[in-house]
């Protein structure tokens, strides 16, 4: 993907912060509807109506996660054999990330999932890792990812999505699975079995 980066040769961050809190920037915020300039990183605009300092800090944290962990995580997902119920180095890496910043970790994984939607191995790996967490630990990105998986063309990825909901075993999971249709008979049989098990478990 192309990206434009503005080189801020003559700016200091401190000035930007003070501008944000000035009366002028507040007035401009009301007229301006822009939130962010996604292509133009490393720049602070008072014109950006409500791109708060916190949002920019979050963007920087997410960027750091991508830089520090993405290639390592993807490599682990591609190289490892996963077994349900057994923690792998990929699980350990994600737990370490969660410990550091849970909110950013979940957003980072969600982005990785979308960016690698054509890479079956990565998708299945992410789903397996997330399914090892409790539902409450991964909500809302966990079920968001698993739902996206159910829209994948690969039956194996969809199976992993169903299995993630099965592992989480929540009432939400049951509601989702009851509305899923699978064309493949083997997958549909598995889905029906999971729904029956969850109904029994949650009744």
């Amino acid at each position, binding site marked *: 993907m192309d990206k434009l980066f503005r080189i801020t040769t003559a700016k200091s961050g401190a000035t930007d912060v003070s501008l944000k809190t000035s009366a002028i920037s507040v007035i401009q915020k009301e*007229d301006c509807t822009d939130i962010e300039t996604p292509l133009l990183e490393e720049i602070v605009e008072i*014109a950006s109506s409500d791109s708060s300092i916190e949002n920019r800090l979050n963007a920087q944290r997410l960027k750091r996660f991508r830089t520090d962990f993405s290639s390592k995580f993807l490599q682990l997902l591609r190289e490892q054999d996963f077994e349900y119920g057994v923690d792998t180095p990929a699980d350990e890496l994600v737990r370490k990330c969660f410990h550091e910043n849970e909110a950013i970790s979940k957003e980072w994984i969600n982005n990785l999932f979308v960016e690698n939607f054509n890479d079956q191995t990565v998708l299945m790996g992410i789903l397996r890792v997330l399914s090892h967490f409790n539902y409450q630990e991964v909500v809302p990105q966990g079920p968001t990812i698993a739902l996206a998986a159910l829209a994948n063309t690969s039956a194996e990825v969809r199976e992993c999505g169903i299995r993630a909901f099965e592992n989480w075993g929540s009432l939400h999971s049951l509601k989702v699975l009851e509305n899923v249709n699978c064309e493949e008979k083997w997958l549909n049989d598995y889905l029906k079995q999971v729904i029956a098990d969850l109904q029994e478990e949650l009744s």
Partner: protein
Amino acid sequence: MFDILERYQASFFVKATDIIPSPEIISILLNMFSDKGFLPTTFQEIGPQSPSPQVRLRLNSKNNEWGINFASHRIDIEKNPVVAAGKNVGDVETFVKETKDFFSRILGHFRKKGNRLSIITSGMLKEMTHKELLEVYTKLFRPLPFYEQNMPFEWKYRSVAKSEKHIKKTGPLNVITNINRVKGKLFDPTNYAPEFERIEVSFDINTIPENEDARFNAESFNDFFSSALDIRSDILNQIRKVLYG
């Protein structure tokens, strides 16, 4: 007029606190946009209306060209560049047509009325020589003596005005035009990163925030986009005249 298209964004200001990343809502939206192949993802929202961080829902096309952000009080539809020079972004008229379709789908289901509409566009003009860039500055500004003697290599020209002329059903519009001299790097898939210095032109045209009545629906975009694009076109012509004669 634009050599590089940066992005387009249309926004509908509406209370959307119920459109959250829950399995029920995601299923509805995935069905709604099944022909587009959008995927659900999330973003953190922190702003004046949500001072504590909230996880909000975003729909993304697989290549990130399209994004629909469901913030707590606004829905933003954006089209981003994914190929060289933003050629995929296309013309603004096509963006507007697609956006109206997307908002119709969303508001057709969630039956919401909003209080504000907005369109943001930005792009960069073709490359200019150093001399031409300096001339643009002198055409737009009456500089202080210091900057006359030391010509600036970065500057921003921002104008905000209300347009009463284009009132139709939307009411007066805020018209914001930014003309900036920017310096940057273009990263492309080959990782070749040529530096550039260009004039960037962006617009933020929106209905005024003072009227908080939830009076807009999906059809309101017809009048709004028509007025906003007229104004944008007029100003672009004026910029063209000033810059190129």
